[in-house]
């Protein structure tokens, strides 16, 4: 499915949070796994994240926050995407996300929500799985 076009993923921190160590590790790991990686830079607004994702037609948006604002900020990205009627871009999350918040994010379609110490292979597998779903939808919608 990804033969001609590798998985395309946008890494973003949709808030005022400078903890970018994990982003840089993931960027390299995704690239080593053959993915096409974009990084939204620091302090993008949820709107900017969604605009970039749509313009670049990515398969997955990978969001990270370590400042405790994930419920507000991740939801904004998901809402904006939905408002545009886009269902072929998946959202995955990560950061310092308490277990009790995970179901709330899952309900918004934001999956993964991995904490520190998660093996890179687990994250790569999950992103690939979500990208496959997106790609199927993209093909379906022609």
């Amino acid at each position, binding site marked *: 499915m990804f033969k001609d076009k590798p998985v395309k993923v946008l890494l973003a921190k949709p808030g005022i949070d400078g903890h970018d160590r994990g*982003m840089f590790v993931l960027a390299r790991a995704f690239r080593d796994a053959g993915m096409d990686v974009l990084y939204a830079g*620091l302090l993008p607004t949820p709107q900017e994240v969604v605009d970039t994702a749509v313009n670049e037609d990515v398969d997955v948006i990978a969001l990270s926050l370590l400042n405790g604002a994930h419920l*507000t900020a991740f939801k904004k990205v998901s809402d904006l995407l939905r408002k545009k009627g886009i269902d072929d871009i998946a959202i995955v999350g990560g950061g310092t996300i308490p277990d009790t918040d995970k179901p709330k994010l899952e309900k918004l379609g934001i999956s993964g929500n991995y904490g520190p110490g998660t093996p890179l*292979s687990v994250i790569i597998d999950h992103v690939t799985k979500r990208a496959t779903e997106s790609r199927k939808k993209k093909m379906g919608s022609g």
Partner: protein
Amino acid sequence: MTRRDTYWSTKLAEISSRRPTAGKKYEEWNKNVLSPWNRQTGSKEDDRENTSGIPVKPVYRAEDVPADYGDRDLGMPGEYPFTRGVYPNMYRGRLWTMRMFSGFGTPEDTNRRLKYLISHGESGLSIAFDMPTLYGYDCDNKRAEGEVGKCGVNVTSLRDMEVIFDGIDLSSVSTSMTINAPAIILLAMYLAVARKQGVPFSKVSGTVQADILKEYIAQKEWMYPPEAHLRMIRDMMVYCTRNVPKWNYISISGYHIREAGSSAVQELAFTLADGFHYVQMGKEAGLNVDDFAPRLSFFFNSSINFFEEVAKLRAARRIWATVMKEKFGAKSEKAMLLRFHTQTSGYSLTWQQPLNNVIRTTIEAMAAVMGGTQSLHTNSYDEAWALPSEKAVKIALRTQQVIAEETGIPDVIDPLGGSYYLEWLTNEVEERAYRYFDQIEKLGGILEAVKKGYIQKEIAQTSYRRQTRIEEGKEIMVGVNKYVEEGETPIRILRVSRKAQKTQLDRLTALKGFRNESDVRKSLEKLEASMHNPSENLMPHILQAVESYCTLEEISNVGRKVFGGWKEPVIV
């Protein structure tokens, strides 16, 4: 080659010439004792290295340190080059300060907390700010939604600062404010409160972090291009040296560099390189190095590779003293002392089996103490999950108290000094730091190296390598890639309420009703004009704007207009 270049290369050559050569006794032992033993018992002699990638031998001997090592490189406590400690009596005179950094939702909450601490004898106050404040945004900015009062107190205008310090005499406390990009504005607010209380600036004491170079390197909290922020730091240095002599205007920080993924050697080298840049800046502004250098202090990380951390802290003192004396011409010993705060490593804490974090923090705190720290913050075991709960904070504080009161460690100064391994490692770490100084100079100095993204890339590389080693099982994190437990039960964590946002928004609305709008406009115009003149000191103009009740964002926006923003170089 420029003259500045020469200092580092000369220094490197000098250090390398002192390198001991491998001892005969060691080689014999390796051949005749260790290797046969390994063959007989089937043990494998694998390569070991620490986080800085320094290979370590199975055992160290006297010949691993230079023959004349001693008085020249070590000295005694309180004696140049201060390897063994900055004070003659160290913890026998006074224990390190147990400074626990924390943030509290609203200015009212913070005021209550500060008064509680003061009533229990605290005079050293410490304030954490929320993310909008750290980035120079008001509480009503769209970006601030969901962030107001989280991770620290929100300060949108002088009104908030007045509430925080209501009923607290600023001449009798010292306040440490962890703030960087808008540090000059927050300092102005603090001074404005002092003025309202009738406290002369000469009696005001405290600290702002204001280490902007490490922001571009690691923490990534900036508003303008580096040159604009550096000018503001220069203006603070000059203003404070003349008017607020008890104010520490920069806390040069390696903590964030390490948390961003650097090794111990990189933390040391990049932090000291930042420090040298500030010293150079002060000299170029016409200040006497003996006058302002004593006001510079440092902030280091203490992570889990015990000996590497102790070596780093000892090497830091020696390098700083040597360079301040030899390169910057410091005459007074006070200007050569590297005094520092330490915080245990947040990155070393695991989300899995969180109680293990108590043990990690204990070991890291011991390294900080054996490294001679002046103050210490110990992390709480639940910090990989959320902001720490009260119970977890208390255990973290108790950890320090046990080390201080029960172990006997503080009884002897530099208790690991003289260990062949530690002395060898201190030298090794020192030499590698000088290699970085030389390299940074070749790139045109630390500012250029940061603008080119060189420093950030070095850190990202180390961080990725470390992660890969953990994935491959070459480096172990207990509970993460070894001794893993399935189905762990969650621990209780702290939840922050959203009431702070409403309190702050209400106060901002009230402020805009009572302040004099023409004063606001005039002071912002004056500030803008002064920003266009690089030789003018901004401090008096910012003070004026703050006292006219301009908001943090209004003042920050003048700079955004004049200097523009900053987009970081490509790192990934």
